[in-house]
């Protein structure tokens, strides 16, 4: 695979991953959000596999498979179960409406391009062209966490943030050392499980997962 094709493919893959994040801003409803996350994880695994093929690094393949299993299949299954419990709630209007959210998302992607200009100029890897999109996903995920009102959506925003960082690592460095990668995976999986337990707890205590209700502690 020539470097130009790798460059095109990495931009293509990163764009799909970023689109998954933007779909979270666009579509409403828990099922659509879970679908966006699954799509994003699959696109990320595919990009990782592509970079692994180009770099000839079997460890990246292993990580891609792990990512697919955990984030493409495992976590969405758990999320769907949660979605069935909490998804039938009233469709909550987020703090920022959809059209404005999408525009802000676009602006954040532009901001990411500006911020990562030094990175792209320093690197010599052909996959560097997708790095601004990865940082763009990080910013968009932060925006999702801040502007959405359902605890479940905030958890999805956090998972997308981790996806963005994984994409950045793959594109910028062709993968981080395997111990760290596995450790990060375990951390995210554990974090997700604990967050899941908390969402159930919130639902039990507050009778809804609307985070606007979490306002008793002030000052």
């Amino acid at each position, binding site marked *: 695979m020539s470097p130009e094709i790798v460059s*095109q493919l990495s931009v293509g893959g990163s764009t799909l991953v970023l689109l998954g994040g*933007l779909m979270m801003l*666009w579509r409403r409803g828990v099922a659509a959000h879970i679908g966006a996350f699954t799509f994003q994880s699959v696109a990320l695994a595919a990009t990782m596999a592509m970079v692994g093929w180009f770099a000839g690094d079997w460890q990246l393949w292993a990580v891609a498979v792990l990512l697919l299993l955990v984030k493409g299949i495992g976590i969405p299954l758990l999320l769907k179960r949660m979605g069935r419990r909490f998804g039938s709630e009233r469709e909550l209007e987020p703090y920022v409406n*959809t059209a404005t959210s999408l525009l802000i998302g*676009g602006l954040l992607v532009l901001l990411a391009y500006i911020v990562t200009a030094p990175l792209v100029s320093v690197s010599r890897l052909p996959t560097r062209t997708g790095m601004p999109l990865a940082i763009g996903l990080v910013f968009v995920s932060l925006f999702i966490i801040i502007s959405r009102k359902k605890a479940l959506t905030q958890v999805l925003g956090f998972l997308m943030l981790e996806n963005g960082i994984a994409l950045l690592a793959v594109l910028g460095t062709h993968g981080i050392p395997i111990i760290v990668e596995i450790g990060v995976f375990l951390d995210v999986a554990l974090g997700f499980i604990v967050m899941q337990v908390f969402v159930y707890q919130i639902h039990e205590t507050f009778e809804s997962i609307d985070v606007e209700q979490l306002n008793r502690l002030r000052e």
Partner: protein
Amino acid sequence: MSPWLLGPVQAAVALMLAPGLVGAIRWMKARLQSRQGSPPWQPYLELRKLFAKEVVVSSNASWLFRAAPFIVFGSTVTVTLLVPLLTVPLPLGGAGDLLVVVYLLLLGTFFLALAGLDPGSPFGGMGASREMTVAALAEPTVALAIFALAWGAGSTNLGQIASRTLITPSEALAPGHVLAFAAIFLVTLAETGRLPVDNPSTHLELTMIHEAMVLEYSGRYLALIEWAAALKLLVFFSLLGNLFAPWGVASAITPGALLWAVLALALKLLALGGVIALVETHIAKLRLFRVPELLSASFILALLAVTASFLVR
């Protein structure tokens, strides 16, 4: 064949094919919905019928009402001369600029909206305001998406954009291209009045956008407007087809190449028509306040297309 003759030939081909395209889409939708459906050449028969019918004009209407159909039809036919339908380079050479195309189409929309307001009918006014909302939101996206393509080609001349993809075929799968395609596809749905923005076969006035504006028209005026709408659909489809997959377009003006180009165009139109039919069968119409969300999404796609083609230079 002289290049000057090419323009009228291209326009004639477009005029001939446009109603057939609308008929084909209608037929495909009917078959998908397990209906018999009217035959694909039905719109031709409708046009013939309309041209023979009497024109009834409201007493409140002014000269604008009678002039609008001609302006709309004329501007759309001019656009067919400026887009890469059959050949590259274009018959009118340097005049085939993207911005000219966009604003000619907008001119048509503008006059149609005015004509909707002119007779003073409430449905006409409602349709006109809705149409302008959609057009205003869709316009920046079109410009931005073709700008993304233009960046790669180095010029906003549509012919040059198309020929660039012919020269380097791998450009067709470039992320910037694909995103621009998606963005223009969404805009096509909006501008040509297709689901999920507007239902072209609705008979409920409160759900109409385009149909509401032309509610007052009859006879040959209605025929001209319907034909112009079909032409607009054809223009957008040919933009989608020939800018992103320009294979089949004639680069030399020989009868053989032109015939081949007409065939390729017909095939692309049918393919895109099939996609539209599938989309329309599966999606319900969006409520009007949700349309800006769809158009914002297409705007973001266009923005990403620009940044993607900016990066991978």
